[in-house]
């Protein structure tokens, strides 16, 4: 008897219409002993690669196809071979073009245009339609699709369709129109349909299947339904046997790089390498040339010369156009990449393994990821599009999946939960979500008697749907460049961005298909660095050459060791700041380890603390098994690098090199539970075969698993560490320029801008508030304190001689006179506005260069010499907008400084500045230097702005029409000014918010953060401050870490789960906390172990500006 195979099957890549993952369907097919299974998702082949891999692993023959809406009806297309697949891709691309995003439909005429090597199944009951299909697509290729889903009408529909097929001479094929793998998933499918219709289940009743019969059925279940039509059950297997689609595009992956006449790609590459060698290495040693020769040989053998040329060309373009960029990832293992200028880390000096990047048996394609400054990334992408042509370039897709909050909202809505309940549940979900849905909703869960009826189902459905594909979006920066036109390889869809196309495969699929993807990522840090370098050139006259840094300035390492790293790339996080004083990096290699170890990976794999303990000699270096010793010796027995994962897979689990690399790659992907357990089996059985005890194998797999997802490869860590060093160097030697770079390129980094400003102030530098005549579009260094010559500071450890202030200093040099606009930058006793207009406020003092209170903790030990302060730019005035900022600066340039508020109004009225922005400028103090009190300025200003008589766009809050006489308006005091600045600029150039609470906090016995280091271990203490970070672990029952900030510095707080449970709401929601606990100090790191958490009441709430993360 012929087996039955399923040819009409929707996975969850039929977005919102499939209730199972491709792997689940494949597994079920294997359980049913089904020899073949098709995947036919609607409008695409998004799940095809996963389907292929799953089927192959399980011994099921994979069939590739798609379901497409043709003239309003569903048509199933099955690819017979690669040519059929290409036709399918072209057709799918056409079907998506000119349709709303995510939709695909086409006509029979189009399908006919691309018809070779495809089979077609149609469940139509319209005889003329069937005949039309046969006519257009060929009789032998068209099948009448028979269904029986145990609906009352099914038996006679079936008979009718069979008779019609017979009349047309069409063959029949039975399918089950599968939408989920087991009946139990029917509910999820119903919910997805409801979500798709944005309605409740009740409302979409008519769109739901009437029973649970659309699951994957084997021959045993199908046979009773199709009694008398056995040929229909045999047909799918006959079709399947004719199909053979191998998706391997390795041969067509390169677009053919145009080399100069007389050269081949390899000879050209060779030439470029030796040119680059002379630049990078002086002198050129034999070790260097030997390494280069070796790598070039491998490149020649693997045929990858063009790949390197493409990347070299890209970097050349970037350099020529002033676009900051650098290679990251394993490419840094390669000397070829180094001499071609793709990467910036010397692999010889840092002992980096080429084979991690490329070797002869390589089955996957090597990875060259390049970071570009975010501002310029678009330019680079555009260059690729233009150079290789739109036909051969496209963006890699990213499938957006259901996230917890969305799942709760959408599933709940489908079930008819009230909007109110859903709101509470979704908001109640910790931003850190755990596997246990109910636990994460914790306090928002209604008591048992108030739960909706379908509560249990709701939880189960949420659990199932999380991580389900939801829709397509573009993978940030992943681009495909191919040899053959892209549409023959993968369907492309229009992207929201004009002229861009996105392929239906994601980055993992692309790799599996053997295609080359270029990863051009935007790294804001590179923008920061580029901008800071330009500013340093302006303030000192010379632009530092970062390539020339020797990476061994002891002051830089000292600063890192003190955890004075706010703003420094990769080592500024709370976790890093807790580790740095313990590991005390002293060399560049130490910094590489530092960058690599503080990732979620090693922390989950339990590796961070052991490494630190071992480095400090507190713990002996041991290996879980002797086989691990040679692999982990360099890292003291602890898994830190991806290379080590590969080596473990080979030496301990006995995998071949190709498979080991595949294993590492598979582990680093986002796998669902089902896929992960399959890898575990493979690994553990390999270990057992090698004589490794079961318990060790399990432990090892957990460690590898925890590590693998985020673990760094050594070369990648090295590339990043270079940027860490450079940013640390800039922070140390040019803190103001660096801070300007950071503030001008937000959002980025670990901390909110206000924290960066506080950090600057704590280092004895100043931030100057927005000033209508001094601020620029962006934050800029501004010379303060008079005509002192600019000091160039220290450059790479060598002090530079003092030079006179160079041309090009930004801002107006301030002549020595009593404080005017700058005074708000100084923390000091509160100073109220005095009631006279014009002239500087009475009672002001000349500005000292250092604030009166100094944070002792986390300070650089070297004095920082600078006369520059950071002038906050117009980019930190809410509602002003880019046009508004430019307008102010442009007008000032052409018309000179603004002489008064009215002058400003008359010059800028009618321009792009909104009334709200004008109000914000006044209230943030931009006009303070011009003399008038803020509220007075705003009295009746709208008429001056719009002209008398016109009342367009009146901003009600600033208007009080009381018959024209201006009343006595309350003055803005320091506290008001502080609040206004926080509200309008989201930061403070003056006092820290906590300064205003200091009296109250003293009453409450809270200790200032700069006094915390003196508190002995184990002593009870009360601390208080603004919450600036909240970190929660991945699983609910672990410890949380908060950081509080006051005007003196920061303090770390550790909160155990039981304490957190008690104070959860307060801890999460309140911005200013008072925390009682016990001091814990160890190795130069201190933290307060919390026992009681309370909010500070009676102070106006600032907006939340904490960084909350997992």
């Amino acid at each position, binding site marked *: 008897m012929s087996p039955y195979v399923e040819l009409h099957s929707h996975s969850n890549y039929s977005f919102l219409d499939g209730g199972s993952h491709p792997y689940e369907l494949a597994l079920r097919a294997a359980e049913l002993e089904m020899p073949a299974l098709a995947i036919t998702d609607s409008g695409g082949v998004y799940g095809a690669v996963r389907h292929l891999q799953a089927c192959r692993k399980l011994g099921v023959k994979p069939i590739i196809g798609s379901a497409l809406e043709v003239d309003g009806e569903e048509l199933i297309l099955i690819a017979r071979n690669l040519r059929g697949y290409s036709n399918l891709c072209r057709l799918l691309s056409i079907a998506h073009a000119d349709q709303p995003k995510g939709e695909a439909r086409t006509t029979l005429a189009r399908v006919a245009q691309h018809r070779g090597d495809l089979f077609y199944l149609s469940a139509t009951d319209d005889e003329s339609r069937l005949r039309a299909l046969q006519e257009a697509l060929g009789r032998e290729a068209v099948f009448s699709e028979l269904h029986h889903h145990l609906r009352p009408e099914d038996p006679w529909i079936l008979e009718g369709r069979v008779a019609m097929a017979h009349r047309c001479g069409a063959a029949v094929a039975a399918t089950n129109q599968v939408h989920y793998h087991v009946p139990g998933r029917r509910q999820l499918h119903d919910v997805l349909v409801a979500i798709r219709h944005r309605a409740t289940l009740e409302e979409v*009743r008519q769109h739901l299947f*009437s029973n*649970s019969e659309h699951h994957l059925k084997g021959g045993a279940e199908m046979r009773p339904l199709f009694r008398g039509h056995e040929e229909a059950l045999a047909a799918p297997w006959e079709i399947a046997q004719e199909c053979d689609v191998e998706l391997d595009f390795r041969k067509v992956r390169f677009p053919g790089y145009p080399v100069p006449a007389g050269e081949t790609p390899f000879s050209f590459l060779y030439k470029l390498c030796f040119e680059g060698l002379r630049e990078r290495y002086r002198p050129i040693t034999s070790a260097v040339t030997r390494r280069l020769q070796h790598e070039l040989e491998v490149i020649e053998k693997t045929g990858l010369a063009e790949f390197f040329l493409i990347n070299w060309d890209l970097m050349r373009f970037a350099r020529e156009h002033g676009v900051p960029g650098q290679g990251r990832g394993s490419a840094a293992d390669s000397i070829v990449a180094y001499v071609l200028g793709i990467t910036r880390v010397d692999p010889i000096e840092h002992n980096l393994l080429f084979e991690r990047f490329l070797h002869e048996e390589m089955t996957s394609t090597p990875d060259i990821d390049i970071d570009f400054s975010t501002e310029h990334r678009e330019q680079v992408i555009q260059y690729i599009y233009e150079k290789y042509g739109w036909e051969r370039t496209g963006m890699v897709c990213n499938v957006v999946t259901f996230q917890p909050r969305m799942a709760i909202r959408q599933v709940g809505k489908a079930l008819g939960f009230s909007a109110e309940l859903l709101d509470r549940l979704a908001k109640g979900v910790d931003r850190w979500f755990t596997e246990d849905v109910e636990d994460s909703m914790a306090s928002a869960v209604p008591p048992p008697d108030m739960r909706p009826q379908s509560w249990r189902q709701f939880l189960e459905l949420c659990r199932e749907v999380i991580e389900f594909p939801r829709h397509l979006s573009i993978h940030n920066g992943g681009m495909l460049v191919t040899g053959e036109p892209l549409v023959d390889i993968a369907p492309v869809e229009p992207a929201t961005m004009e002229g861009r196309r996105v392929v239906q495969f994601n980055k993992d699929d692309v790799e599996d298909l053997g295609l080359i993807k270029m990863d051009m990522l935007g790294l804001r840090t590179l923008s920061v660095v580029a901008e800071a370098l330009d500013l340093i050139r302006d303030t000192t006259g010379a632009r530092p050459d970062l390539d020339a840094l020797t990476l061994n300035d002891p002051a830089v390492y000292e600063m890192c060791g003190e955890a004075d790293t706010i703003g420094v790339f990769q080592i500024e996080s709370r976790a890093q700041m807790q580790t740095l004083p313990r590991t005390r990096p002293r060399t560049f290699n130490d910094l590489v380890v530092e960058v690599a170890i503080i990732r979620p990976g090693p922390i989950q794999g339990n590796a961070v603390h052991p490494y630190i303990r071992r480095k400090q000699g507190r713990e002996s270096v041991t290996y879980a098994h002797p086989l691990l010793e040679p692999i982990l010796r360099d890292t003291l027995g602890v898994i830190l690098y991806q290379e080590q994962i590969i080596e473990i897979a080979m030496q301990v689990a006995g995998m071949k090199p190709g498979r080991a690399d595949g294993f590492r790659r598979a582990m680093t992907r986002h796998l669902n539970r089902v896929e992960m357990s399959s890898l575990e089996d493979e690994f553990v059985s390999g270990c057992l075969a090698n004589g490794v005890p079961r318990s060790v194998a399990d432990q090892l797999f957990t460690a590898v698993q925890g590590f693998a997802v985020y673990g760094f490869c050594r070369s990648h860590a090295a590339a990043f560490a270079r940027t860490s060093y450079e940013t640390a160097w800039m922070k140390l030697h040019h803190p103001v320029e660096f801070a300007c770079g950071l503030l001008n390129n937000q959002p980025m980094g670990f901390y909110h801008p206000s924290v960066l400003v506080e950090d600057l102030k704590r280092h004895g530098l100043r931030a100057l508030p927005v000033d209508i005549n001094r601020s620029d579009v962006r934050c800029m260094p501004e010379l303060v304190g008079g005509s002192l010559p600019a000091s160039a500071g220290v450059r790479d450890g060598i002090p530079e001689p003092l030079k006179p202030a160079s041309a090009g200093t930004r801002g107006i040099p301030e002549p020595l006179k009593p404080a005017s606009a700058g005074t708000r930058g100084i923390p000091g006793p509160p100073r109220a506005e005095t009631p006279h207009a014009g002239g500087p406020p009475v009672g002001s003092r000349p500005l000292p260069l250092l604030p009166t209170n100094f944070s002792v903790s986390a300070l650089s030990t070297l004095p920082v010499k600078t006369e520059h302060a950071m002038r906050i730019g117009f980019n930190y005035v809410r509602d002003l907008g880019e046009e508004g900022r430019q307008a102010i600066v442009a007008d000032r340039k052409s018309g000179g400084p603004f002489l008064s508020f009215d002058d400003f109004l008359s010059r800028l009225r009618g321009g792009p500045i909104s009334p709200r922005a004008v109000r914000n400028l006044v209230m943030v103090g931009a006009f303070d230097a011009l003399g008038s009190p803020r509220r007075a300025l705003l009295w009746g200003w709208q008429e001056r702005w719009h002209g008398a008589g016109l009342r367009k766009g009146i901003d009600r809050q600033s208007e009080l029409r009381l018959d024209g006489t201006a009343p006595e308006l309350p003055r803005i005091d320091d506290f008001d000014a502080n609040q206004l600045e926080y509200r309008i600029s989201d930061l403070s150039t003056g006092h820290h918010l906590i300064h205003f609470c200091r009296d109250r906090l003293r009453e409450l016995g809270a200790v200032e953060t700069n006094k915390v280091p003196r508190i002995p271990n184990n002593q009870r203490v009360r601390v208080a401050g603004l919450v600036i970070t909240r970190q929660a672990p991945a699983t609910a029952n672990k410890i949380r870490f908060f950081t509080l900030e006051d005007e003196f510095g920061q303090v770390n707080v550790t909160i155990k789960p039981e304490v957190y449970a008690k104070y959860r709401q307060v801890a999460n929601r309140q911005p200013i906390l008072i925390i009682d606990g016990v001091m814990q100090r160890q190795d130069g790191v201190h933290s307060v172990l919390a026992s009681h958490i309370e909010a500070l009441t009676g102070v106006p709430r600032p907006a939340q500006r904490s960084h909350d993360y997992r």
Partner: protein
Amino acid sequence: MTRLISPPTAIDVTLDHGGAPIAIAGAFQGSVEPIARWKVEGSWWDRPVVREYWKVVLNNSLLCELYHDLTTRAWFVDRVYD
């Protein structure tokens, strides 16, 4: 002509080894010959309905519809064709 039995009448059913009804007892009585079957599963979020329907000929003369409520395991006659 057909009419719904409302409310559906409970009956006892004898099944063959394949799970199909062969005889019923209660308000309706006699041997039954199944001629069609279908399944309805709905309203699972509210009041779930999981039923397997059978169209049968009772005593070789009356066409009627039975259903098996899979939640309560009870059988009912809910329609006759007379």
